[in-house]
């Protein structure tokens, strides 16, 4: 009960603090909001990029065509060599006869053409289908496979898709960098706001010390003030990001340009957006005031 009453009085002090230096508080709230909007963008973007990359990765296969007159034994050797490389997730063999069969099943035209060949004269090539772990280095892996003996041609994906993934990845990194910089600026600004509150109340603090207030008691209101600033700063970004994304999603019909790039459904991302933005807002606020309190409320 005692602790609760003390907490309540600290909280009311904190709210008074927010309003006492209202313009500065507003600047802090604004700065937090901008930061969090960007954090929100980053979360949405990285969720989509991750989702999208994962889908492409699943489809992305290196096709390794082997030399036509290759012995069964050499086929196995090539397979083992591929498996021995880095970045390999899955290796599957497809003989030329398998390919022939499936092509015949797929289309009438292929069927009539390929019918003229028997297993011996089959013009197709034996191949390995290789999946990689990291799609960003798929080119390097393909180059390494090409150097293996008895490998004829190596093909993988479409260059443009790979480029797109790389661009998204870069955007993501820039975004992260910006967020980190903004978070630092925000912490600094909040620390400054709290510092001014502390200074404007130095007389109260002095008297509190003289009448026997503990450090925790003196620091509490300022700490809460930072948290309140963080909380207030996170409201608009949370609402904006959640509804903004939902709107965008509906507007675009859940995909960008083509059906290849599917967007993450808003309901899959709402929870993490709300929680993430709120947590970052509050933590940034708390950390800012912690810094100010440590620096300006020494005993």
């Amino acid at each position, binding site marked *: *009960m005692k602790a609760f009453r*003390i907490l309540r009085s600290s909280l009311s002090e904190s709210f008074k603090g927010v309003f006492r230096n209202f313009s500065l508080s507003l600047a802090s709230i604004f700065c937090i909001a901008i930061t969090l909007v960007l954090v929100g963008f980053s979360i949405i973007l990285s969720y989509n990029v991750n989702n999208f990359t994962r889908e492409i990765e699943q489809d992305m296969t290196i096709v390794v065509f082997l030399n036509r007159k290759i012995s069964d034994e050499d086929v196995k050797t090539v397979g083992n060599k591929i498996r021995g490389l880095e970045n390999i997730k899955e290796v599957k063999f497809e003989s030329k006869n398998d390919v022939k069969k499936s092509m015949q099943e797929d289309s009438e035209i292929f069927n009539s053409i390929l019918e003229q060949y028997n297993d011996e004269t089959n013009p197709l090539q034996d191949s390995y289908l290789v999946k990689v772990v990291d799609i960003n280095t798929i080119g390097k892996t393909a180059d390494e496979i090409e150097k293996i003996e008895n490998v004829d041609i190596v093909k993988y994906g479409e260059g443009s898709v790979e480029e797109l993934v790389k661009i998204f990845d870069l955007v993501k990194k820039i975004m992260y960098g910006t967020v980190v910089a903004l978070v630092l600026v925000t912490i600094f600004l909040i620390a400054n706001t709290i510092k001014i509150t502390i200074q404007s109340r130095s007389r109260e603090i002095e008297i509190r010390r003289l009448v026997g207030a503990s450090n925790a*008691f003196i620091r509490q209101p300022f700490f809460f003030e930072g948290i309140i600033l963080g909380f207030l700063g996170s409201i608009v970004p949370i609402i904006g990001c959640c509804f903004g994304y939902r709107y965008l999603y509906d507007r675009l019909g859940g995909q960008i340009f083509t059906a290849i790039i599917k967007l993450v459904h808003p309901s899959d991302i709402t929870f993490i957006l709300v929680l993430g933005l709120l947590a970052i807002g509050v933590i940034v606020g708390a950390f800012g005031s912690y810094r100010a309190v440590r620096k300006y409320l020494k005993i």
Partner: protein
Amino acid sequence: MQLIELKNVYKRYNNGVTALCDVNLSISKGEFVFVIGDSGSGKSTLIKLLYRQEKPTRGDVFVGGINMSKLRNGRVYKLRRKLGIVFQDYKLLPKMTVYENVAFALEIYGLRRDEIRRRTLKAIEQVGLKDKLRSYPSELSGGEQQRVSIARAIVNNPKVLICDEPTGNLDPKTSMEVMEVIDRINKELGTTIIMATHDEKIVNRMKKRVVQIEKGIVTRDVLKGKYKDEGI
């Protein structure tokens, strides 16, 4: 051990000034002690050692059995809760009423509202300002403001009331009124009083124990003393 004891206490500030030199003093419960001396003689320094605003450079200061040198910063508040402190400049908060200024000192205890009210009113009554509850400091005379600060100092029922020149800003008549309040606290509540002052008239009128400091050295310590040695 006495309530307050100083043993071979030295205080040297960082700028090289030695404010106290080999001070020995012992004050028992319920005493009323004047610490007198010219400006710059070291009275405030002695007072500051008692509420751990400063630490002695050498020697030991005990307050209520606690060694001030060994008291950690994080624990100072526990000492302060047993003290009441009054300053020359009152240290009131201008935007708070008399009632709020006094109740302010109780906020830290997390008491119930009616308990705060009861104790605050009692303290204000003790200094005779019951009819000024809703006034702001700027609406009060100097003497009244000092009485508010005394009410704030005693609202937590301290064992010791420490005063640093409480009448320094007051005219002689108001000074005597404030002294009467302090004397009553000493007599009625049994609170130990330690008061630094260089006001000759007050010291001579009150006839209490006098500890005189000159350039940081205790030169006289007499019961029922006067400001100046009467000679033989």
